C-alpha cells in the first residue's frame, strides 16, 4: 500500500552549509550596493589615514618646541591644520556610517522580505516542525546577527585592519625594536577579547532567557490572580518568583564578570604597552637614539592601536555569530514545501467541484500510526457530516482536502484530476474553510471577515455576518464593524470568534464549505439557526461538517463515522442509529440525561 509520510527531522542543529553557499545569500545585496560600499569604505580609509596624520603634526610641534625652533605662527598653522583635518574626519565619518551601516540595514530588509515570502509558500508540516518562536527568532535575532556582521562587522574589520597595519608601519618607521616590544601585549588583548566576547554572548543569552521566564511568570500570575487568591497562593507564588529572581541575579553577575574584564583588559594592555615605551623608549631617548618628538608620537600611536586590537577580537566573534545565523536562515530558505510547486495557471474555477478519495492512507510521521487508513470517499454536492472520537482523523481529512498536507499521487482527485497535478492555490480557491481554532488577525472586525475578499462591500460583509448570526453582537461592540480585534483589540468569546470565522468563510462564496468542528463553542440554538441558513444558501453546493453533536449531524444528508482513521460506517442518521454501535453510543450519551429527564418528569 502506498502511504505518504512527512519527514520530521528533530530539532537537531542544522549542519553547516558551505561558506560559498552562505555568501550566495548575501551576494545580491553586495552586488546591488557595490558603489555604496566602495564609497563608504573609501571614506573609512581616508578617515583612518587622516587620523594617523594628527600625531605626526603633534610630533612636529613637540619636536619644534623641544628644539625651540618653532614660532607661534607655525604653532597656529599646525593647530588650524589639526582642526581642518578633524572637520574632514567628522564629515567622512558621517559618510561611511550612513553608507555602510545603511547598507547592512538594506541587506537586512531584503533578507527579511525574502524569508517572509518563503514562509508564505510553506506547507502545514513545515509549521509543525518549526515553532512560531523559532521562526520569529530567525527574523529577529538571526537577522540582527547578520546585519551586525555586515554593518559594524565590516566597518570594524576594515578599520581595524587598516588602522593597525598603518599604525604599526608608522611605528616601525620610528623604531623597529621599540615597536615590537610595545606591541607585545596587543595580540593577547585581541585573543582575550575574542574569548570573552564569545562567553559574554553566551551568558547574555541566558540572561535574556531568564528575563523571559520572569516576564512569563509575572504574566501568568497576573492573569491567574483569581486562582492565586482563591487558593491563598500569594506567598507560594512570591517564593517561586524569588527563586527565578535569584537565578536571574546570578546570571547577571556572571555577565558582569565578563563585562568587568573586557574593558579593563583593554586599558591594561594599553597601559602595559605604555609602560614598555616609558621604560625602553625613555632609555632610548636618554641614550640619544630617539628624539623627544618620536617618543610622544609613539605614545599617541600606541593609544590608537588599543581599539583596533579589541576590534579584531570583537569582529572575529561578530562574524562567527553572523555566519551561524546565516546558516540557520539558509536552512530555512532551502526547506521545501512538500506540496507540488505548480503556479496557478489561471484557469477558471470549477462550478460543481467534487473530491474523490481513493484508498487514501496518510501519516503525520513515518513512525506514527496512520491518521487516515485506506479511505474511499466521494464528496460531491450535498451536506456531509463527519464524526468520530478525538483523534479519529476528522480534522486530518479536512486539512488534506484543503491541501495543507501532501498526499500521495492518485489518491485524492479534485474534479477527476489528481490534486498533485494542480496548483494548491487553485484547489484552495474553491474551499471556504472554518477551522477548529478560529484565527483572528489584529485588525477591524470588517477586515477580518473580508480576509478572503478584501474588495467586498460593506453590505456583503454585514450580510455574511448576519448569516453567521454574529451581526447583532458586532453592532454591540464599541466601534461596531470598525472595532479592533486580536491581540491588542477587544477580546471576543470563543463562540463569537468561531462565528466571525464562519462569516469570513461565507463571504468568500466558494463552491465548497468545510466546517471543521468550527461551531463547537457556539450554543446549540444558534448553531441550529446558522445551519438552517446554510442549508438554503448552499443548496446544490458541497458542505462538509465535522461535528460531535448528534443534533447537528442528524440534519446532514449523509454521515461518515471515522474511528482510528478508518471509515467504520456511513449513511443517513436513522441508518447509522441502526447500523453503527459507535454512533448509537454517542447518541445515547448525548440523549441520556434527557431520557432520564422524561422518566423523572413523568
Amino acid at each position: 500500500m502506498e502511504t505518504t509520510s512527512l519527514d520530521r527531522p528533530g530539532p537537531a542543529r542544522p549542519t553547516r552549509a558551505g561558506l560559498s553557499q552562505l555568501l550566495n545569500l548575501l551576494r545580491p545585496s553586495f552586488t546591488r550596493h557595490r558603489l555604496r560600499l566602495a564609497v563608504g569604505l573609501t571614506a573609512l580609509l581616508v578617515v583612518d589615514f587622516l587620523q594617523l596624520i594628527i600625531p605626526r603634526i603633534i610630533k612636529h610641534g613637540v619636536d619644534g618646541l623641544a628644539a625651540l625652533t618653532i614660532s607661534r605662527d607655525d604653532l597656529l598653522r599646525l593647530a588650524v591644520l589639526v582642526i581642518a583635518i578633524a572637520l574632514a574626519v567628522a564629515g567622512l565619518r558621517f559618510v561611511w556610517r550612513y553608507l555602510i551601516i545603511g547598507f547592512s540595514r538594506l541587506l537586512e530588509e531584503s533578507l527579511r522580505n525574502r524569508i517572509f515570502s518563503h514562509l508564505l509558500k510553506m506547507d502545514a508540516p513545515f509549521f509543525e516542525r518549526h515553532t512560531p518562536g523559532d521562526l520569529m527568532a530567525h527574523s529577529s535575532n538571526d537577522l540582527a546577527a547578520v546585519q551586525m556582521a555586515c554593518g559594524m562587522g565590516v566597518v570594524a574589520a576594515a578599520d581595524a585592519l587598516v588602522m593597525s597595519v598603518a599604525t604599526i608601519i608608522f611605528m616601525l618607521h620610528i623604531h623597529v625594536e621599540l615597536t615590537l616590544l610595545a606591541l607585545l601585549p596587543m595580540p593577547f588583548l585581541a585573543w582575550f577579547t575574542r574569548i570573552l566576547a564569545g562567553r559574554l554572548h553566551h551568558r547574555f543569552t541566558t540572561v535574556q532567557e531568564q528575563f523571559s521566564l520572569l516576564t512569563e511568570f509575572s504574566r501568568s500570575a497576573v492573569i491567574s490572580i483569581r486562582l492565586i487568591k482563591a487558593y491563598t497562593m500569594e506567598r507560594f507564588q512570591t517564593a517561586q518568583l524569588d527563586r527565578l529572581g535569584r537565578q536571574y541575579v546570578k546570571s547577571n553577575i556572571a555577565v558582569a564578570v565578563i563585562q568587568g574584564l573586557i574593558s579593563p583588559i583593554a586599558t591594561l594592555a594599553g597601559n602595559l604597552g605604555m609602560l614598555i615605551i616609558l621604560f625602553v623608549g625613555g632609555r632610548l631617548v636618554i641614550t640619544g637614539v630617539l628624539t623627544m618628538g618620536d617618543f610622544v608620537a609613539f605614545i599617541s600611536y600606541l593609544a590608537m592601536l588599543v581599539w583596533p586590537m579589541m576590534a579584531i577580537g570583537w569582529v572575529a566573534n561578530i562574524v562567527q555569530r553572523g555566519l551561524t545565523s546565516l546558516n540557520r536562515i539558509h536552512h530555512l530558505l532551502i526547506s521545501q514545501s512538500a506540496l507540488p510547486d505548480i503556479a496557478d495557471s489561471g484557469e477558471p474555477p470549477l462550478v460543481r467541484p467534487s473530491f474523490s478519495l481513493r484508498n487514501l492512507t496518510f501519516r503525520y510521521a513515518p513512525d506514527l500510526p496512520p491518521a487516515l487508513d485506506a479511505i474511499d470517499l466521494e464528496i460531491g454536492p450535498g451536506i456531509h457530516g463527519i464524526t468520530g472520537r478525538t483523534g479519529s482523523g476528522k480534522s486530518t481529512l479536512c486539512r488534506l482536502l484543503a491541501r495543507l498536507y501532501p498526499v500521495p499521487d492518485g489518491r485524492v482527485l479534485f474534479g477527476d484530476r489528481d490534486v498533485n497535478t494542480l496548483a494548491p492555490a487553485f484547489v484552495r480557491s474553491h474551499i471556504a474553510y472554518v477551522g477548529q481554532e478560529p484565527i483572528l488577525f489584529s485588525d477591524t472586525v470588517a477586515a477580518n471577515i473580508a480576509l478572503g475578499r478584501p474588495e467586498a462591500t460593506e453590505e456583503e460583509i454585514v450580510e455574511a455576518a448576519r448569516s453567521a448570526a454574529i451581526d447583532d453582537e458586532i453592532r454591540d461592540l464599541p466601534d461596531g464593524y470598525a472595532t479592533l480585534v486580536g491581540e491588542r483589540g477587544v477580546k471576543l468569546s470563543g463562540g463569537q470568534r468561531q462565528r466571525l470565522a464562519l462569516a469570513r468563510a461565507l463571504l468568500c462564496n466558494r463552491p465548497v464549505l468545510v466546517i471543521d468542528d468550527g461551531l463547537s463553542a457556539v450554543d446549540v440554538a444558534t448553531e441550529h439557526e446558522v445551519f438552517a441558513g446554510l442549508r438554503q444558501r448552499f443548496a446544490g453546493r458541497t458542505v462538509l461538517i465535522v461535528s460531535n453533536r448528534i443534533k447537528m449531524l442528524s440534519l446532514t444528508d449523509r454521515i461518515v463515522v471515522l474511528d482510528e482513521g478508518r471509515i467504520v460506517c456511513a449513511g443517513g442518521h436513522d441508518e447509522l442509529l441502526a447500523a453503527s454501535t459507535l454512533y448509537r453510543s454517542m447518541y445515547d450519551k448525548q440523549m441520556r440525561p434527557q431520557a432520564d429527564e422524561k422518566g423523572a418528569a413523568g
Partner: protein
Amino acid sequence: MKDFGYDEDGRAGSLSDIRIWGRILRYSTRHWPALTGAVLLSFFVTGGTLALPALLQRGIDGYITATDLDGAARLAGLGTTSLWYGLLVILVFATTFVQTIVLEWIGQSIMHRIRQDLFAHVLRLDLQFFNDHPTGRLVTRLTNDIQNMYEMFTSVMVTLFNEMVRLLGILVLLFLMNVELALLMTIFVPLSALITILFARLARACFRAIRHQLVRLNSFLQEAISGMSILQLFGREGKSRREFEDLSHGYLQRTLSLIRLFGTFMPMTEFMSSLATALILWYGGGEIIRSRLTLGELVAFISYMRLFFQPLRELSQKYSIVQSAMASAERIFQLLDTGSRIAEPDQPIARPAAIRGELRFDKVRFSYDQHQPVLHDLSLTLRPGQAVALVGTTGSGKTTLVNLLLRFYEPQAGAITIDGMNIARLALADLRTIVGVVLQDVLILQDSLLANIVMNSGRSRQEVEEILARTGMARFVGRLPRGLDTLIGEGGHELSSGEKQLLAFARVLCRAPAILVLDEATAAIDTESENILEEAIADSFRGRTSLVIAHRLSTIRRADHIIAMRHGRIVEQGSHDELMAAGGYYADLVAMDRHNGNGE
C-alpha cells in the same frame, strides 16, 4: 530581548524628584557596607587612572629630558618610575574589576528586593484593580520597569559616579598645572552638555519610533506565522507579502534616520577632542616658548585631554537611561502606593477548629461599576451539608455570588456569614481555606502532577493518593504516562481540558474545605473525564456544604436544592421535581435546553 510588545510611550522622568531619589536610597541602605566599599574603590580607581599620566610626566621631565643629571641616575630614576607605573597599572585593573562586580551585585540585589516587594504587593491588590489595569501594563511594571531602574543603578553608580569623580579630578589637575590652559578647556563642558541633551532628546524619539515599528512588524509576523494556513486558504499571500514589505520598509526608514542621527553626533566628541588638542598645541606651545610651561606638562595635558573626553561621552550616553529609569521608578512607586480595596480585618476572628458549614447571604447588594446592580438584596441560606445548585443564564449573577463569597469584591450592602461569622471579619487566608473553590480555568505549574495537586496545601503523597482513590480520581492519574510524577505544564505532558478540570478538583479536595464551591466548565469535556468528574462530585457532596454553578443536568439532579437566578434575583428555589412541577422559569430553562441540545 523579548519584550512581549509591552512598550509604553512613557514620558521622561524628572531627574530632580527628591522623593523618588529618597525611596531609591532607602532601598540601598541595607547594602551600605558594600556601597561604601564601592565608593572608596571608585576614588582609588580615579586616583590611579589620573596618577598614570602624572608618572609618565615625571619620567619625561624628571629623567628622560633631564639633561642636567648624569646618564646612570637618569636610567635608574626611569627604572623606578617604570616600576611604580607597572604596579599602578595592575592595581587599577584589579580594583576596576572588583568595583564593577560589587556594584553589579548591589544593583541586582536592590532590584530583586523591589521586584519581590512589588510582586507581593500586586498579589494583595483587589480584583477590581486587576479589572481596571491591563495585564500588559502590570507585567511591564514587574519586568521592564524594574529592568530600566536596574540599568540606572549600575549606570548611575558605576559610570556616572566614576566619571564625575574622574572629570573633577582631571579638571583639578589641569588647573594645578596651568590655570589659563585649564580654563580654556572648561568651555568644552557646557558645550558637550548641550550636545548631549540635544542628542538624547532626538535619539529618544528615534528609538521609540524604531521600537514601535519593530513591535508592529513582529506582531504582524507572529500572526502571519500562526495563521499561515488561514492566509493560504483564503489566498491572502500576495496581500500579506505587500503589507509585510511595507512594515519592513518603514522599519528600514526609521533605522536609517537613527544612523543619520548617530552619524551626526558620534563624531562630535572626537571632533571636540581634536579641537582641544589643537588648542593645547597652539596655546600651550606659546606658553612653552614663553617658558611658562614645560614640555612634559604639555604632553601630560594632551594625555589628560584624551581622558577628559571619555567621561563626557559616557555621561552623555547615560543621560537618557537615567531619564527613562526615573519614569519607571515613578510608575513602580506609584503602584506600590496603591492600596487594596479589600482590607484584612483589623482584629480577625480566630478560625474555629470545626466549621459546621452554614452559609448565609443576607440582603446582599452588589454592582461592579456602581451603576448597574448585579445582585439586588439577595438572601440565601445553605444549611450545613446541603448541596445547592445555582442555575440561570449568563449575567444572572451566579459567578458574582462566588466572587463575593471569596471576598474578591466587597458587597455594597448586606453581609455574608459562615456559621454566623461575617466573612469580612475572617482573615482572608482563613476564609479562602474554609471555602474551597473549583474555578473554570486552571493555573498549571510547570512541575509534576503531584506538585500541581499539592501546591502549598502541605499534603503528603500518601494522603493525595488516598484522596484520589476515595473519589475515584485515581483513574485519571492512571491514564497519564508516569502517574503522579508526570511532568505537566509548558514542555511537559499536555492535559486535555477534561483532565485540567479533574486536576482543579483534586487540588480543592486536598485542601479539605468545609464549604465547596464549584464553577462547572461550560465547554464539553471528553466522556471519560466527565464520568470520573461526576463520580468525584457525588462523593465530595456527601456531608459537605456545596454551592455549584451548574451546567450539567447530572450535577443539578444530584443537588439537594436548586436555585434559579435571573437578573441578580432568586426567582425560584426547590427540588428538581418541585420546580418542574411548578412549571416556572426553571422548567422553561430545562425545556429550552431540551429543545436546543437534546431534542428529537
